[in-house]
């Protein structure tokens, strides 16, 4: 059974239909890359899956449970999903350690010592142990984004949603974040990531989905979607990307 299933998703902002009958299936341990032009609805899709946006139609199932049912408690669902944002969104008034332990302590009611031990272990694994007591504004962008990923992981999520997590980074800092995602894949984490890094999508994704006009126009293994796309709109998009020197 698939870990995440989206069927017939529709989302509109006023007159603007952003998602239009969108279908997406993500198997456990799979990494799915969402690609598409700016404004094609990649972020909106991720936000809908995390129940941060209200759907206008369609069904989302996580682990066989329909989470788009209005009777479902969204806070309970979000505990099982980790989300990382383009702009890191760390809490500036909390130290790195407090950022990471906030959810384990307040949401999962773990004891402070236990939550901190787990957080330090996670930070250590990504080489940020020395930054535990620093405030986010003392960290580089790459370090902040890695803390944001650790913060999401501390909830031990079933699924990670990564929204263009490297777009705000200087080129030389992109690598450290990508290598962290690579490690997550090795650990078997299920991930959906919106990205403009075609090279990375090709390397890490099991499935690439091209979004256009509110739908998944083309989906498949990266070699196929990025190498021999069958849909004219995919080809057009990739041609523009190549012209911009990003592939």
């Amino acid at each position, binding site marked *: 059974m698939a870990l995440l299933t989206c069927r017939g998703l529709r989302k509109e902002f006023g007159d603007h239909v952003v998602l239009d009958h969108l279908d997406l299936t993500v198997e456990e341990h799979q990494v799915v890359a969402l690609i598409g032009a700016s404004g094609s609805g990649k972020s909106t899709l991720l936000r809908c899956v995390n129940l*941060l946006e209200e759907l206008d139609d369609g069904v989302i199932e996580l682990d066989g449970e329909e989470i788009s049912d209005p009777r479902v408690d969204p806070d*309970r669902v979000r505990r099982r999903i980790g*989300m990382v944002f383009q702009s890191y*969104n760390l809490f*500036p008034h909390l130290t790195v350690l407090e950022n990471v332990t906030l959810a384990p302590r307040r*949401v999962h009611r773990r004891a402070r010592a236990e939550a901190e031990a787990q957080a330090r272990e996670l930070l250590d694994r990504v080489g940020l142990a020395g930054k535990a007591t620093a405030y986010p*504004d003392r960290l580089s962008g790459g370090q902040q984004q890695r803390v944001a990923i650790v913060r999401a992981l501390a909830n031990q999520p079933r699924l990670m949603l990564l929204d263009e997590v490297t777009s705000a980074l200087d080129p030389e800092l992109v690598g450290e974040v990508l290598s962290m995602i690579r490690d997550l894949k090795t650990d078997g984490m299920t991930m959906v990531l919106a990205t403009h890094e075609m090279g990375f999508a090709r390397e890490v994704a099991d499935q690439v989905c091209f979004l256009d006009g509110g739908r998944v126009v083309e989906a498949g293994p990266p070699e196929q979607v990025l190498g021999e796309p069958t849909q004219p709109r995919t080809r057009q998009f990739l041609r523009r990307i190549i012209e911009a020197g990003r592939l």
Partner: protein
Amino acid sequence: MSLLRHVPSPAQQRRAEHRRRQGVRSVLVAACSTAALGTLLVLAVTGAPGWDRVRESFLDPAIARDALPAVLTGLWLNVRLLVCCAAGALLLGLVIALLRTLRGPAFFPIRALAAGYTYTFRGLPLIIVLYVLTLGVPGLRLQGMPPVLVLGGLALVLTYGGYLAEVFRAGIESIHPSQLAAARSLGLTYRQTMRHVVLPQAVRRVAPPLLNDVVALQKDVGLVSLAGPIDAVRAAQIATAETFNYTPYILAGALFVLLAIPLIAVTDWVTLRSARRQSGG
């Protein structure tokens, strides 16, 4: 390690020397201009034709000494009222601001009440609230009516609570929605998000205007004396009526300024600190 110590180049040494000389010069210039202006002011005031009469009726040391105990007793009332009313108004303002952020139809009446409260009490002059509460309410002759002092304090809390609620609300609304999204995506409930993510940042951001309102409150607590209790200004007024000399007012004014200095200093310090933090320093 002394081998590795950086030795300033001749250019840097010249620059440092120049800066030092500039520094000495600006201190001298500041001292001279202050002295000149001060002398001018003193000459202008003491040279005025009515100076001797003014000095007698406003700056009489003997009268100041006599009035001091009564004025100090009054000032103690100001201090106690200030502490209680500031705490009460901050708490009330925070609660009202939080109520106004509640979403959902079930909370409509609460939201409406909270909004109505801030509109009313920000519009209403403090003196009127004070008179209604300290003169009107006791007229009801209810059982267990609190003393006039408490009612007067309540008037202050209600009025300042309205201002402070708006300051808190501005702070809450200044927190970027992405912070809420991040907190909610971690599974925090709305209340936990407010408590652990939004409010701590909002309060830090609006601490300077909040403290500024507390400084203003310090001057307004004296108005309770309109209803009977004797604060520092009222004590000075009584002493003035007895001696036909205004020195007690000057005394009370000086004490008020002394009282305000620490508060204002804290406000400035907090403002400076939050300005530094915001500039990413």
